[in-house]
Each structure stands twice: as structure tokens, then as C-alpha cells.
């Protein structure tokens, strides 16, 4: 039985700069995988490869057993099945919160406007943002914006949710509300990949942790193994650096 999402021997370089080197990771259904690693270790590039925003230089990516990295894949349809949220709140400033959320369901998945609207409002209601439904994004706090971005990403019922440092631009109080939302999605069975520096959160939510170092999977395992008994010196150094920065 293969995992829901598989990366096999992925290689990605920008010119001379080899950013991802022979990376292989399995993402089982309903699991949360946390990617950790120093800045520049390739976390964002890995995620951008996963939703095909970057072209691979080698290797293979399978979604539900289908090779989505194959030449001629309908990239738009693949992306429609993968939700992604980036560090900057890329909400569309000219659309209200509801319209931000319904854009992809309507255009990509052919959901009727009134149905999409109702679903969006129900999601906002569930995550405590009902009163922001008709606001424009610039009137929302950073935490609210990021929560809307996450809701927008899951409104299409994606098979996989990619979260790339979604709390990096937020202050601690706002971070908490975003992390709560992510934990709820996890409870509901969303398969997710999370790049984060919030190690406390990583310990709690992760089913497995992958430590990227110099573009390679340097160490991986359960949160207990990775945080409790790191094997390699590089991971120990990384964790103690985080410790000193007060992140652990």
C-alpha cells in the first residue's frame, strides 16, 4: 500500500545551486509531517515542488499513486487537489473574505456561486470568523488574514495541505490562533505538510518530523526521536540553536 503522497529521489537546482538532493519522503493519509531545517535548507523549495510551482530536475512525485511530475500532467488540476498557504498572506486584496474563499471552488471546481458562498460562510463560522465574511482583507489582523488564507486553501477539500511558515510573520498571540486552526484541521483528518520554526507546536502535531540539511533529508522520525534523541551532530546543533533563540 503506497502512501497518499510520495516524493521519490527529488532533485532540484537553481542554476549551479543544488537546493534539493535525492529527497525521498512518504506522506501517509491523515498524517501531519513537519519539515524543519535552517533558513535556506530548502523547505520552501520542497513545498513549491510538491504543488508543481517549481519544475523538478529529477525524481518523481506521486499523488494517490499517480505520477503528477510526469510530462503532460494537467498541472492546474493537480494544484486544485493540493491546498497551499505561504508565509506572506497572499489574500486577494480586491476581493472580500468570502470571495477570496469561493474563487477556486467556483472557477476550478465548478461549484455554483450560492453553494460556494454557503460553504465558505459555514467554514468561517466554524473557525470564528463569521463577522469578517464581507470585509476586505486589509481590514483584518495578520492572524485573521492567515486563518482566512488557510480556510481558502481547504475550501476545495484538497487531498493535501501545504503550510509553509504560516506563522512566521505573526506575533505570539496571533500565532496561537492560527495554530489552533491547524490543529482542528488535523483532528478532522486533513493530511498536511508543515514547515515551521514553532518547535513546541511541531512536537504536538507531528506524526513524523523531517530534518532538512543542505538539501538532503538528514534525519527523520517521530517527534520523540527527533527532539528527544537526535542522532546526528547537525540536528543537535540546529536544535540547540533553536533552544538558544527561545523556540524550544
Amino acid at each position: 500500500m503506497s502512501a497518499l503522497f510520495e516524493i521519490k529521489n527529488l532533485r532540484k537546482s537553481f542554476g549551479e545551486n543544488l537546493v534539493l538532493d535525492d529527497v525521498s519522503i512518504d506522506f501517509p493519509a491523515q498524517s501531519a509531517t513537519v519539515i524543519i531545517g535552517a533558513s535556506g535548507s530548502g523547505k520552501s523549495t520542497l513545498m513549491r515542488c510538491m504543488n508543481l510551482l517549481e519544475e523538478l530536475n529529477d525524481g518523481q512525485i506521486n499523488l494517490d499513486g499517480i505520477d503528477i511530475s510526469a510530462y503532460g500532467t494537467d498541472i492546474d488540476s493537480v494544484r486544485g487537489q493540493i491546498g497551499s498557504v505561504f508565509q506572506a498572506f497572499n489574500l486577494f486584496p480586491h476581493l472580500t473574505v468570502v470571495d477570496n474563499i469561493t474563487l477556486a471552488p467556483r472557477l476550478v471546481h465548478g461549484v455554483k456561486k450560492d453553494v460556494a458562498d454557503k460553504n465558505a460562510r459555514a467554514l468561517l463560522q466554524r473557525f470564528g470568523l463569521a463577522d469578517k465574511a464581507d470585509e476586505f482583507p486589509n481590514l483584518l489582523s495578520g492572524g485573521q488574514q492567515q486563518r482566512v488564507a488557510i480556510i481558502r486553501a481547504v475550501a476545495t477539500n484538497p487531498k493535501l495541505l501545504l503550510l509553509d511558515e504560516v506563522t512566521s510573520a505573526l506575533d505570539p498571540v496571533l500565532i496561537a490562533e492560527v495554530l489552533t486552526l491547524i490543529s482542528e484541521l488535523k483532528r478532522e483528518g486533513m493530511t498536511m505538510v508543515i514547515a515551521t520554526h514553532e518547535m513546541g507546536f511541531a512536537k504536538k502535531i507531528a506524526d513524523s518530523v523531517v530534518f532538512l540539511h543542505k538539501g538532503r533529508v538528514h534525519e527523520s522520525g517521530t517527534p520523540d526521536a527527533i527532539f528527544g534523541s537526535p542522532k546526528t551532530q547537525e540536528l543537535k546543533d540546529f536544535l540547540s540553536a533553536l533552544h538558544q533563540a527561545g523556540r524550544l
Partner: protein
Amino acid sequence: MTYQPSALQLQREAAKRRASRRSTLIALSSTLAVGFLLVLVITGAQGYEMVKNSFFNWHYAKQAMPSVFHGLLLNLRVLIIAEFFVLLLGLLIAIARTTTSPVLYPVRLVATIYTDLFRGLPLLLVLLLVGLGIPGLRISWIPNSAVVLGTVALVLTYSAYVAEVIRAGIEGVNPTQRQAARALGLTQSQTLEHVVLPQAFRNVTPPLLNDLVSLQKDSGLISVLGAVDAIRAAGIQTAQSFNFTPYLVAGALFVLLTIPLTRFTDWLTRKQDARQRAQGQW
């Protein structure tokens, strides 16, 4: 307990009122002084009586009004049609210039040459080349009406300007917006239509409307091809009476024609500035 402004605040507000009263007074008196001086200089000029008679003659103004106004209706028709095609063509060229796919290189090249060419050529020259050159080719299916060819010339020139304005708007949209849309599964064209263009147009509405105001008045240039628009109609009147007042009448009508759009542009610009300040983007 209701709020009572402190003495300090009252003092500050009083000072502000005094300052604003003073600047109003200064503005008023300087305007009056300049106006008075102008009247003195102009009415005191040697040729004043002559100019007054040949440019500001009420009798001729009334006489010219109907035909000049009738001509203006032609300008109005021309500029509405021209504005439509200018926006359409300008949009297409701007989209062509902002594509990145290597396959579309020829399209980009053509669009670039087009904008370079028609932004550089004086409008008068384009009017003459199109208006006199094309009929000279004697191709039977091409209309040789001055109105049609004049409109074509206006569209050629102004779509180049408008394309550049729209292109600036498209390039001003943050690339992360495009990526966010693509990550949601929107296609290239859906991304352009629903995410990029709405933001692009919003960014460039004021300069865009400025170009349209400019197009409105330049629609008067089709008279050089012999189309009987407001200016040509005024010219015909002038030739009969040897009095230049009809030109002034045409000028006044053109100003009236453009004022609504210029005021609208000003209003919109101020509104956008205010909104951006509110967003703390400045």
C-alpha cells in the same frame, strides 16, 4: 461625565482656525489682484478692441452655435467608439507584452514594436498617413471616409499609450498574487482575469482616465482630414464671416466635454490616495 476638551486642545483648535482663515484671505486677495491686473493688461492692450470683436463676438457666437454643436456630436460619436477600441486594443497589447512564455516571443516583439512606433509618431502624422495614405491605395473594401479613418488613426496612437499604462498596472501587481492564484488551481487566463487585471486596473485608473481625457480633445484633430466635426464646423463659419468667435465656441464646448471626466479622475485619484493612506501603504 461627558468629555470636555482640555484648554490646551481648545487653544490648538483656535490657532488652527485662525491659520485657515488667514490662508483663505490670502488666496482670495491674491486671486483678485491677479485678475484685476490681467483685466488691466488685456483691456489696455492696443489691439484689444479688434481681438474682442473677432474672437468674442456674441452675435457670431450665437450664429455659429448650432452647426458647431452639431459638429461636436460627431466628435462625441468618434470618441466613444475610439475609447472602446483603444481600451480593447490597449488591453490586448498590454497582455501580449506581459506574457513570459518563450513560445510567445514573436507576439511580444510585435507588441513592443507597435507601442514604440505609435508612441513615437506625432498624432498629426498618423492622421495624415492613415487618412490620406490608405485611400490612396484604392483598396475597394476599405472605407475612405474621413471620420472612419480619423477614428482609426486615433485608435492606433492612443492604444499604444493606453497599453503602456495598463502594462505598468499589470507589472505593479505583486507576483505572489499570481502564485497564490496558480496554487489554488486557477489557470493562466483565470488568474489574469480574476486576480491580476482587477488589481492592475485599480492601480492605473487615474493615468488611464487622463489618457482618455486627452483622447477626447484630440478627437478634434480629425478635422484635418475634412470630417465636419466641431472644429471644422467652426472653420466653415469663420470662412464665411471672417470672425474667429466660432473657434472659441468650439473650444468652450470641448472644455465642457472634458470637464466631467477630469473632475471624475481627480475625485477617483483623491479617493484612492485616501484609501492607500488608510491601509498604511505610504
